[in-house]
């Protein structure tokens, strides 16, 4: 388990992170969502042990992470623009990483890059952005670390490459208990494969939830009432939001679906139906509950 305990970081009087706390369970896929400059990269660099927090700590399996090589062996940090040596090929980069990651699986690495049809003697500097990104994903995956931190890895990639990378990550998460933490400014990139989502804004965590749990716990209904009847509705529900347009009421409520339906029936709704709910809607509405309008962040 990775615990982020009250981490703060300031760069030249600019507060990048302010008392961030988060607990990341092993084997989960986390998405860190936020606009540019929100503090996502700073948080990942602190988790990776690159930056030292001004306050707070990162604890992995009850051990402090900063400058702890034994613990850092569990983590691979993949930045949005990872560095490769000037004359590096896919092979030489693997040699480099295998020298520090004991569990590096060179056989699997070779299989994977051959499957992706990469030339092993071609210099990486001649690769496209998407190809380089795929090579680094392979390096990260074959390092066999338990934690993989990815910073904006889908940014600027075409859909084909994005799907390839997502598939690779899916496969890894499915087949071994990899804990994946992906930072992005785009919710659509994250909602498909993240178990949990955290929204980071102005250096603080606004919201962090398990997506499936929220999807099970939050329901959207559209109901038709005769005049006045809808007033009884609010009393029995754990409402996230409610919107009235004449006879039509759209509501978002937490709870068990059947119980919500029962309350709607009892409130005298002439007709009602459950509507599909997007992750975006859940997050926008959840944040509104705690007093933030994050539609600009995640749209």
């Amino acid at each position: 388990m990775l615990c982020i305990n009250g981490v703060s970081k300031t760069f030249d009087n600019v507060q990048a992170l302010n008392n961030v706390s988060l607990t990341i369970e092993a084997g989960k896929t986390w998405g860190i969502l936020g606009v540019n400059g929100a503090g996502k990269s700073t948080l990942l660099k602190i988790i990776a042990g690159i930056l030292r927090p001004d306050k707070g700590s990162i604890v992995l399996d009850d051990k402090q992470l900063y400058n702890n090589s034994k613990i850092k062996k569990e983590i691979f940090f993949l930045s949005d623009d990872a560095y490769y040596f000037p004359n590096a090929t896919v092979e030489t980069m693997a040699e480099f990483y295998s020298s520090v990651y004991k569990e590096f699986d060179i056989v699997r690495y070779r299989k994977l890059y051959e499957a992706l049809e990469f030339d092993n003697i071609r210099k990486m500097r001649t690769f496209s952005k998407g190809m380089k990104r795929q090579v680094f994903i392979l390096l990260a995956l074959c390092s066999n670390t338990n934690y993989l931190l990815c910073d904006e890895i889908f940014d600027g990639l075409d859909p084909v490459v994005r799907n390839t990378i997502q598939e690779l990550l899916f496969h890894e998460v499915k087949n071994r208990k990899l804990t994946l933490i992906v930072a992005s400014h785009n919710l659509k990139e994250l909602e498909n494969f993240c178990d949990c989502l955290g929204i980071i804004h102005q250096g603080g965590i606004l919201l962090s939830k398990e997506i499936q749990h929220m999807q099970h716990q939050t329901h959207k209904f559209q109901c038709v009432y005769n005049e006045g009847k809808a007033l009884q509705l609010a009393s029995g529900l754990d409402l996230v939001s409610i919107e009235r347009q004449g006879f039509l009421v759209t509501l978002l409520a937490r709870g068990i679906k059947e119980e919500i339906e029962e309350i709607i029936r009892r409130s005298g709704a002439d007709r009602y139906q459950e509507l599909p709910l997007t992750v975006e809607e859940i997050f926008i509405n959840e944040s509104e509950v705690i007093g933030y309008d994050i539609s600009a962040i995640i749209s």
Partner: protein
Amino acid sequence: MISVPSSHSYFFQCLKRYAGVIVISLYLHASYIVDFAMAQQGLYLFSGDNKLGPQNNMMFYISLIIAILCGLQGFSYLHSEKKLILYLGLPLKRTLLFWHSYICGILIMMIPCIVSRIICIFLARDSQGNALYFAAGGILMNVLGFLLIYNLVILIILLTGRIWAALAGTAIALVYGTYFIGTVIEKYCTAFLNNYYKINMVEELTAVLSPIRLYGNMAGVNDYSIYDNWNIEDKAEYLFIAAAAILISGLLALFLFNLRPAESTGKALAFKKSKGFIKILLQIPLSLIIGYYSMQLSVKDRSVLLLLGGIIIGSFLLGGILEILDKADIKAFIGNKYQTFTITVICILISGAFIFDIWNYDSFLPDSDEIEAVAVSINGLETDYLLNYDPAVDYAAEDRLNIMNLTGRNKINALNWLYKVMDTDKSQALTFVSVAYKYHNDQIKYRRYAIAGQKQIEEFSAIYESEEYKQGTIPLAGEEKPSGHSFLWSNGVETYHLDFTDEENQELLDCYRADLAKLNIEQLIEYRTPIGLLKMTEWNEENGREGYIYPSFETTIGYLISKGFAAEKAVKDYEILKLEVQDRECNIEEAAEMLLVSESLAVNPVLAADTGEDVVIKCRDQNNRVYTVISCKILNPRH
């Protein structure tokens, strides 16, 4: 799945990053071997240096270049955010990360250095049986020098966040002592202290604060010897300082490496706290030097107003520029006003200390009991100095002041004479006397006083006639035996090797020393210039102990004549075939009217062997067979 011991394997990966530097190192060391091999044959390729030991100039520069390259290659990733993320993200402790790069650099220097030196042992033709000693000394000094510079480069890289700042900082730090401390003190002492010659403590400080100079002193590359004569005992002091500097800078580098925040990449300075200190180190000496050069602009000498104006403007300008460089923002020019103001005040106080001579430097004269000995060197007396050159520059002073020890009565005479000349106005100077007051505790204080005229030189008579003075001034007057040496004689027109036996050499030297003992200052003034030069050579014609022959040296001249050499002849005694004055050909008859003296014998300051014109004559030798072209000076007629 492969599993490899991470640290060893990473070390190899780390070494691979140095491929370019390894190639350069191998090329430079191979060049050294070829250059050394050719130098053994008397051939010149790059440096033509045939020294196997630490004094080899080429190895000095090779180790310097490799230290800078290794430092940059190994640690400049700290200036690139992308590289920094790669390295700091690796599961390695920072200390281990530091040592991997650090040791890679050392190996890249050390292995080729040892191998090339071993090869050169076999190539060395003449190292007087000390080849192993010199080679081992060479390796030790080059490695220590390398570490000194290497640590400094790493420290600068760690203190900075941008490559331009690291390069500029390295360039400044390498010569800081010499150019930022030494030059400023030298300029201010020369400008405001009338009797300044040099200050030992400042010399030592500048040597220590300038790593290149410290390395040079330690290796002895500035000793100007033709063959290896490096001795570890002579360099023990420098070695100790260098070893301490290496240890301290190495530990400091490791400490800073662990402490350095990753986010400092991209800033001029990596540590905020170092800013004030670095600013002081740069701003104070530079402001003082700007003030000094502003003062030089004045028509009237030493304009304090221009000095202070220069310091104030210089300090504020530099303060602003340093702030702009630090913050990369033009608006920062006016930042940190109080700090700049404080530095300006410090600069003014420093310059004030020189202006008002708060150390009473000029009025200093020690009591006879305080000092063990005194040494003096009058510029031009017994040296081939010409008055149209700067009379303040005495090339012989350093050796003379080291060798000479006037003690007892001679010391008292010297102090009495110095007391009379110490207040002489510099503007009236005919020449200068450099003085070393040698204390009982080995401390030495130096001064240089102006000598205004012949009277002051005549008053020097009692000191001049002493054996201690002559032994300290005239190398040939020393006690060394002539066996194993050969003599060279010249009268300024002709020069001959004296093919004498050891007995004849001893006889000649005895004659010379007897004549020299009788020479007094009145004769020196009367004779105006010597009529010959005798040199006891060591390895070749360039090196050896020499002494002038004056007309009163009847025994020496007689001995040389008896051996067939025209020791009594001067320029005027030769048949002159051609005369050129300052590249202008003249009638030969004009030569008779000129008091010509060979340039190599124009040595007496009292008589001013100067007309401001160079004369070249062509004449026959004593056998009227060989034509000789020599450079001469014209003596002023005696008033």
